[in-house]
């Protein structure tokens, strides 16, 4: 049997992402990778918590943050997680078109989120002269939230690449794991944001 036949079986299995050894390996490796990413963000959160009151007499969290925009961003990202679940649901039912549609919606929500974040940063810089080097708090804030934003950007590019690459040929056992782990990545980014929302914005406003 050639590769083509193996990767495009007549009856797609129920879990196409884990049907091959390569798929199983990717699946497991990606969970491990997310374990490492957890430590990465934990270190960034630790740094932020240690420095969030080190404002050097400049802007404080309370002074800066407005919860309206951040709430909107939270909603967008949470919804995008849900839409990526729909996409994976359709993948498991082997409905490639619907999967692509839901992924596209996910990407749009992600882009909107990213737009808001860029707006937010620019706002701080222009209205408050709150820049990367203003204070230790500023550095920690931009680094933590910026790392998350960088992850969003990478996730978006990744999903879009996969969508374009496989547009014509549809789902098979070679690309199913790729779609699946990209969506795992997306969920992870979402979970991190929930923590940022709580630790940075809510606690910043209240504390």
């Amino acid at each position, binding site marked *: 049997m050639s590769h083509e036949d193996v990767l495009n079986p007549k009856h797609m299995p129920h879990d196409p992402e884990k049907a091959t*050894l390569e798929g199983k390996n990717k699946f497991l490796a990606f969970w491990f990778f997310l374990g490492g990413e957890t430590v990465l963000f934990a*270190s960034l959160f630790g740094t932020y918590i240690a420095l969030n009151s080190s404002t050097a007499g400049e802007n404080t969290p309370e002074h800066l943050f407005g919860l309206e925009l951040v709430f909107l961003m939270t909603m967008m990202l949470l919804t995008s997680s849900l839409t990526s679940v729909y996409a994976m649901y359709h993948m498991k039912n082997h409905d490639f078109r619907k999967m692509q549609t839901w992924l596209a919606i996910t990407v749009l929500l992600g882009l909107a989120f990213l737009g808001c974040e860029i707006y937010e940063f620019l706002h701080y810089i222009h209205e408050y002269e709150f820049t990367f080097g203003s204070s230790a*708090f500023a*550095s*920690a804030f931009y680094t933590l939230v910026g790392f998350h934003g960088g992850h969003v950007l990478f996730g978006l590019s990744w999903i879009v690449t996969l969508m374009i690459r496989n547009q014509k040929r549809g789902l098979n056992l070679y690309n199913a794991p790729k779609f699946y782990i990209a969506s795992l990545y997306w969920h992870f980014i979402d979970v991190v944001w929930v923590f940022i929302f709580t630790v940075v914005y809510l606690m910043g406003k209240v504390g």
Partner: protein
Amino acid sequence: MSTTAAQKGGLGAAIWDYLTTVDHKKIAHLYLVAGGLFFLIGGLEAMLIRIQLMKPDNNFLAAGLYNEMITMHGTTMIFLAAMPLIFALMNAVVPLQIGARDVAFPFLNSLGFWLFLFGGLMLNVSWFTGGAPDAGWTNYAPLSTTSPGHGVDYYVMGLQISGAGTLIGGINFLVTIVNMRAPGMTYMRMPLFTWSTLVTSTLILFAFPALTVGLFLMMFDRMFGAAFFDVAKGGNVIIWEHLFWIFGHPEVYILILPLFGAFSDIFSTFSKKRLFGYSAMVFATVLIGFLGFMVWAHHMFTVGMGPIANSIFAVATMAIAVPTGIKIFNWLFTMWGGQIRMTSAMLWSVAFIPSFTIGGMTGVMLAAAAADFQYHDTYFVVGHFHYVIVGGVVFGIFAALHYWWPKMFGKVLNEKLGKLAFWPFFIGFHLTFFIQHFLGLMGMPRRYWVFLEGQGLEAGNMISTIGAFLMAIGSVIFLINVVYTAVKEKKADGDPWDGRTLEWTMASPPPHYNFVQTPLVRGLDPLWVEKTEGKEGMTPAEPLGDIHMPNASILPFTMSIGLFIAGFGFIYQTDDKTWLVASVIGMAITFGSMLTRSLKDDLGHHIHKEELEEDIKKGVGK
């Protein structure tokens, strides 16, 4: 396949073969050569340090150069010598020990190597561009944030790149061991080297990201005007210390655990006994890995964390001595009553036991927080960590190289020369470092450029330097042995040591698909199980059939070189913003390669049954 292509095409083709290879056995060679080279560079730096400290008020190295020398010695030895040499062993051995044809991600395996290499090159380029990093291998702020020139920037970028490679390697081995074991190879039948690779990889996964973050913060402060460690703007220098040691302490166990595994396999083979207390050994390895994350602040007793934190970390640190002790006794009991063969591998292993135990004992002394106020930052600490790292890690690497050399290169290292290398190194090691404990207790601080006359430190330092020369002699004899063996020794067969585990079931070196047929594992020490039943080799777990193998690729190399170029851009954009062009080009190369990887399917290729039958006729299958 690729090997035959190399034979036909001469040198150019051979180089191309190694640049693109995804074969774990060849990647092991790459790690070995690169790690070995960095070991020599680091060794040279050590010799220069010892010459400077040979006599009081010496002026052999200028003060600034001395700082660069100690920084680069530590950084090189840990990140660029010990780590890659360990990865060389893991690559050479682990897939064979679990009955796999390659690692889970051959492409990433190659990427991990090239990232490490370019990170290491980056660090060492600093010697030629106006000065190496000089803030110690621990790179504490604000010493590092205020260090003039670009030395520390090279430290940051070099370690960031090579650290990414290590992380990738760790994940790769985790998945390989979890998913790729042959039928019957249950967890509790895995050789100890494989077990310790599994635990080490877990440590890498959870420890390295803390370093990644620390390096990013340092990079942002030094290159992009952030204020993490700038006290005037509310920064806090202790954050670096925490992040560094949250990584750094697990790192020392990342270094030693794989060698613990190698020693276990070696003791068992050369005592002709199964490992004493196998399950206790596994348990101890896992426990050490776990506790390794709970103790980082023992490096910071004098920072001012307060008596409660100090006490907690002191007790946690001392607790590690318990699983370590379990291991020491199990090795001794493995040898007890065995038919011991004192090969070179065994010699290094036996020498390891008392040497490492001394290091563990001084470790427990250091763990007593109140006493550590005296020891901290003196030569006592230098003595301690060289006893564990040289007496443990370096002895282990020598032992493991002697043991697995035939599997890696098809020839047994000359035994006479092997022992001849051992003795000067062993004696030199104790001469160099034992006396350093006393120098420390007498008050000699570490990292000082000179010591003064008439304080009783002359003799000790002289002895230490003499020892260092003996170690250098031992290392050179080992190198001579490598060349001598390559030229003079005859080919070894598949199982030169009367081995017990799967790596000894096929030819030396193995065919590039490792196993003609995946073996069926029927117990701990699977080959020994078959031998005791009078069988020639393993029972196959599958019929003879086509084998699926991964394709070679140049992309790992280009991805890494992209980051290398980008690194220079980041370093020099602080002088002149046009350097950002280099960063953009470098990142474009890296991301372009990633994109290519994503867009182009890589389905691998098949080795057909007919080819395998040919190979079996030639005797490869044994």
